[in-house]
């Protein structure tokens, strides 16, 4: 591992994606849970107001992660978003419906109107979490992209080699390894956001909603742990074949890194490609598992803040295990390893990476500081009683 600009940016983009899943993750979870933990309309409004002041700022992590990927790894941004065209389109559509559902739901009294937006909140939250997991799983297992520069085309960059409808169906095709793996990671992600949503609801609300959240949390823990073990185990079996070894220079890797990978190749195949740093990998996986245990204890004892910390750590450890596992590959190609996007052939120029790094060093701590400050301000408990009181007080004002 090198500490060069590309590696720092790989870590920064991972942090931004993790920032998104940690912040928006709990409100996605609350969105999925909101019909289960809240029975009456006022309870539903409590769950939504539990994320009211923050979900919007949370979604900005997604936008910023997208922007940072565009700036630091333009080849990756261009190739990935055009390759996963329909999947990304569905995620965007779901995010749109989610945003407006929150905004529109309370604006009409009618039961039909509110039921419609409740459904919309559930499905959109579920689809976003599922498809983000599906995308991550597919990328880890490798997708059929090719580097057009290998064929002398200097315009198109990395392009997807399969055509619709197969391209999209294969993402969720359980009979193809990358589709199956995508689905498994997708389900694991959904279970994770539910856990994270449970943490938030216990932290932010009290009474019947927090109680129901706890009960769901106790049930969802075991399936999550099982799924995480399955995903990690299967990751060990992932290998990439090499089409033309003479073209591996297109990966643009530093010499020693290339040699290290070359030494692992067995008969034109790079086996257990995601476990090239076994010590770090195992340590992170164990830490993720321990955090999940800590989470279960905290939920059992109704300690919302602690539960939130542990679900955050669970994801961070698991997420960095994924990043380290893939490094230096960003999007491995299932056509041939030489067609893969790495952090060294997908990156921006040194100057851009430097300029952006300065911006990130200055602004990221500021953003984290004021977001934390705002969170702290809104971390008072709410309940059906407090909400009713607030509605009455405003009417008297």
């Amino acid at each position, binding site marked *: 591992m090198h500490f060069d600009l590309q590696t720092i940016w790989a870590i920064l983009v991972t942090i931004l994606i993790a920032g998104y899943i940690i912040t928006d993750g709990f409100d996605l979870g609350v969105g999925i849970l909101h019909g289960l933990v809240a029975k009456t309309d006022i309870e539903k*409004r409590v769950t939504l*107001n539990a994320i*009211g*002041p*923050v979900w*919007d*700022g949370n*979604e900005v992590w997604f*936008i*910023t992660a*997208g*922007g*940072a990927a*565009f*700036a*630091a790894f*333009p*080849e990756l*941004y*261009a190739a*990935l*978003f*055009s390759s996963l*065209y*329909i999947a990304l*389109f569905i995620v965007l*559509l779901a*995010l*749109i419906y989610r*945003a*407006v559902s*929150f*905004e529109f739901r309370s*604006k009409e009294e009618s039961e039909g109107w509110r039921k419609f937006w409740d459904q919309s909140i559930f499905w959109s939250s579920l689809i976003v979490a599922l498809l983000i997991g599906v995308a991550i799983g597919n990328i880890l297992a490798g997708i059929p992209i090719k580097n057009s520069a290998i064929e002398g085309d*200097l*315009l*198109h*960059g*990395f*392009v997807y080699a399969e*055509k619709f*409808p197969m391209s999209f169906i294969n993402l969720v095709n359980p009979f193809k390894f990358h589709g199956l793996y995508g689905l498994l990671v997708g389900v694991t992600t959904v279970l994770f956001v539910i856990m994270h949503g449970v943490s938030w609801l216990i932290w932010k609300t009290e009474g019947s909603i927090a109680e129901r959240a706890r009960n769901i949390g106790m049930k969802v823990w075991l399936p999550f742990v099982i799924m995480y073990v399955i995903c990690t185990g299967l990751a060990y079996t992932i290998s990439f074949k090499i089409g033309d070894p003479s073209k591996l220079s297109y990966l643009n890797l530093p010499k020693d890194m290339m040699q290290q990978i070359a030494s692992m190749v067995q008969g034109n195949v790079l086996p257990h490609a995601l476990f090239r740093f076994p010590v770090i990998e195992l340590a992170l996986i164990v830490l993720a598992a321990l955090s999940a245990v800590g989470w279960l204890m905290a939920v059992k004892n109704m300690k919302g803040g602690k539960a939130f910390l542990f679900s955050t750590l669970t994801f961070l450890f698991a997420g960095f295990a994924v990043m380290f596992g893939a490094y230096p590959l960003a999007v491995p190609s299932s056509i041939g390893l030489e067609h893969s996007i790495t952090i060294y*052939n*997908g990156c*921006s*120029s040194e*100057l*851009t990476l430097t*300029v952006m790094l300065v*911006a990130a060093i200055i602004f990221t701590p500021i*953003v984290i500081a*004021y*977001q934390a400050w*705002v969170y702290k301000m809104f971390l*008072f408990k709410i309940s059906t009683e407090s*909400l009713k009181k*607030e509605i009455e*007080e405003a*009417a*008297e004002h």
Partner: protein
Amino acid sequence: MDFVLLVSRLQFAMTAFFHFIFVPLTLGLSTLSAIMLTLHYTTGKEIYRDMAKFWSKLFAINFALGVATGLVHEFEFGMNWSVYSRFVGDIFGAPLAIEGLLAFFMESTFMGVFLFGWDKVPKMVHLLAAWLSSIGSNLSALWILIANGWMQHPVGAKVEIFVAGKRAELADWWAVVFNPVADVKFWHTATAGMILSAVFVLAVSAYHLLRKQHVEFFKKSAYIALIFGLIASIGEVIIGDIHAHEVAKTQPTKLAAMEALWETKQGANVLIAAWADQKAQKNIIEIPLPIPGLLSFLATHDFNGKLLGAKDLQKMFEEKFGPGNYIPPVNFVFWAFHIMVYLGFFFVILFIWGLTKYRNLENATGFLKVALYSLPLPYIACWLGWATAEVGRQPWIVYPLTDDYGKILLPDIGLKTAQAVSPLTNIEVIITYITFLVTFTGLAIADFYLLSKFASKGPEKEAELY
């Protein structure tokens, strides 16, 4: 035209069109709400509290859709324009990332505090949040326009061959940030947002004043809007002039189309109206303004200045870039630009008229009716402005770097729109185009319904809750 290209262009234009229903109101109304909140906290008067609450509620309904359409916009670069994205990403991606990091976080985080913080956070924090949210939304426009300005005038860049192909690379960061085209675009857009929001507040106020309800509340709101709007609309005339001057220098084909200028001329006239025959490369009808040399003066600051006509530009571009059509659709660009300019002058008159009637505004029925029915006009002006900028740039997606009224400095950086599209299939683009069209239309209708519901209800005592 290739089907994927055509639908991708339609989809991007449609997203921009919907996005720009919501964004200009966000830009201006956030500032107006912050002004009202400042008045409340400094004077202690309840009426300003109600005003800030009422207008920020309309703002919040509108904002959700601005975020939703903006999200689609950002990802559409990669989805539909992957060749463009990989070609320009080294430069174009940076302002987008900084926009998120520096501006958008600020805007949306503090907006949450402003909208949900009533009586829950200290007054100073609440006020600070309102202003930070407003500054954040305008900073966000700045970085987006630095990105857009670079597509029009790609300064600070060089063309290099990288592992995955040819691309533009950053050579001078500060040149990109202080790109004269980008910076004037920002002021032009931010001011347009202020005018639009002023007309919005004025029109809603006129609606209530015509019914003689909440008179004091809406008279005060209208007053703030009139002052704010007058300053912004006069500023816009000046900024518009500077902007047109920059376009003349850096995008001669766009200027030729904006003014239906076919022949190279010294002392060119401004046309009030024109209709061109694009194939024959001439105007069928043209009505000039009787001030000789005005166009040359506006574009070059010299009544006798020389401006290249579309015919010569076409020849010049063909020599440099090979056969092709280098003149954007003249009638479309001419009228989009001219109607926008005429509307710009109309807003100045509207605000002056309103201020002369202010003492007895609730009885100035004539003015109030005009103000109410003017509501769609600033929206139309904003759309037409974007259409001028983006259609006028065609056939280029990245305009070859040009300066001094037609000197092409860096031809290699030019990228044609037709080359820039992703290798997608017909069925993929048609699915997304139709779904986005239906979704955005439905949401715009729902948004319009809710806005008119809450706007016509007037100020109410209600908690800001989901």
